[in-house]
């Protein structure tokens, strides 16, 4: 399957948040700690992406600690799909 688009990734991130009664903010600049998106949520989102792609993502990539906003998450997952 081809790589997921940023919009698709955003929808999936929204699904993860919605399962916990939260809403994904419209702005990509929103800080993750403000919306309550934690490492466990990030892991779940990654698995959703893997299931959709039918293949594992390679997380041996730098920059994970710099992920602080919604946009950072989406960009990181975009990059991982290309790795």
């Amino acid at each position, binding site marked *: 399957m081809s790589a997921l688009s940023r919009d698709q990734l955003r929808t999936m991130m929204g699904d993860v948040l919605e*399962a916990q009664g939260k809403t994904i903010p419209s702005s990509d600049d929103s800080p993750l700690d403000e919306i309550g998106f934690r490492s466990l949520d990030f892991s779940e989102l990654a*698995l959703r992406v893997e299931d959709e792609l039918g293949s594992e993502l390679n997380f041996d990539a730098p920059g994970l600690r710099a992920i602080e906003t919604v946009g950072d998450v989406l960009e990181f997952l975009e990059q991982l799909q290309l790795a």
Partner: protein
Amino acid sequence: MRRHPEAVGTALPPGSGNRIVIGGFRGTWADVSTASLPAVAAALVETHLAAAGAAWEHATSPRETLIAGAGRVSDDQAQELRDDGFTLVRGESIEPASQQREAVTGRLWLLTSGSTGRPKRVAHTLQSLTTVAADQPPRRWLCPYSPGAYAWWQVVTLSLAHPGQDVVFVEAAQLDSWPQLALAEGVTAASGTPTFWRQALWRSAETVAKLPLEQITLGGEPVDQAILDRLTALFPAARISWIYASSEAGASIAVHDGRAGFPVSWLDRDVPGRPLLTVVDDELLIDSAWSARGFEGPLRTGDRAEIIDGRVHITGRVASDEINVGGSKASASAVRAVLLAHPAVVWAQVRGRRAPIVGNVVAADVVLDGPVSQAELTGWCSERLPDYSVPRRLRLLNEIPIKETLKSDV
């Protein structure tokens, strides 16, 4: 160490006149034609009829026997058996032992289920497998277990040892339609794993409800309150029992009060004739007279025991229960119990799934019997479990998976 039962004699078994039904065969144990097994034989069988013949021959003449489904023995294991003095008997085919030896008279070998690894041989006798001693009311039993499995022997030895205990065997091809078979054959007692019962109620509840069951037995897997309650509601007059047994430990716990777990007062209780049960580091230990030879003394079962409200619950395997989620320890059995407590969930399997950042997340497969969304199930778990224990991936299955052992490795 508890006394191990003596080897069995070769007098005609008291239940030799009990009727057995296997496919098209209808007759008594004494009517089953036998294959004239060698003195040290591994009967690798394709059918219950062949297995029953081998069991009858073992019960009525001095010999050493292993009975197993032919598909369970690999080529390497078959060679190992031959090297260890067994002649392999597969229907009409005879493969001689690599070297002949004297039979250990009365020795019965079982292959363990292999759920913990490669199947291995454990040594019993017909007597050590005959764990029901008291007289029994007349019953017609359903035996759905694989030939030669410990639970299969439990039904067979019950029938051989007690008059009035007929058996209807379920061949592998009949497993999906056993309720219809049981109804046609007038079965009044049935033994199966919780997965076996769940699958039957999910697929054929109407037919199952018509069965005149007086005795329902569960074992082979953790037995939870939800399945006991479903069966009790369907068969309020039946005695519903759950048994803890394994090839190594033997049948060690029998509970008949319709509740999951056994009373905590049974722990550390030294009563002659009963197994000594202890819990050490959350693991059940058993010292039983019914254990396999070589497994006497306190046996570490590998099964996890948890004390809840005065009952000791066997919840799963110690080694596979713990899921490390980012340093927090989730219990697969606890998550499964929460899922099964949901009215729409008829079956659940919980495991760890490798995940980035946190190492593992909790994942679950479920079979549903009602309209419920994944979000609702997640919400149900969130209200009852710590955050790290809530399944992050839920997969809905269309069928309850079941293996030849009638288990689904929950």
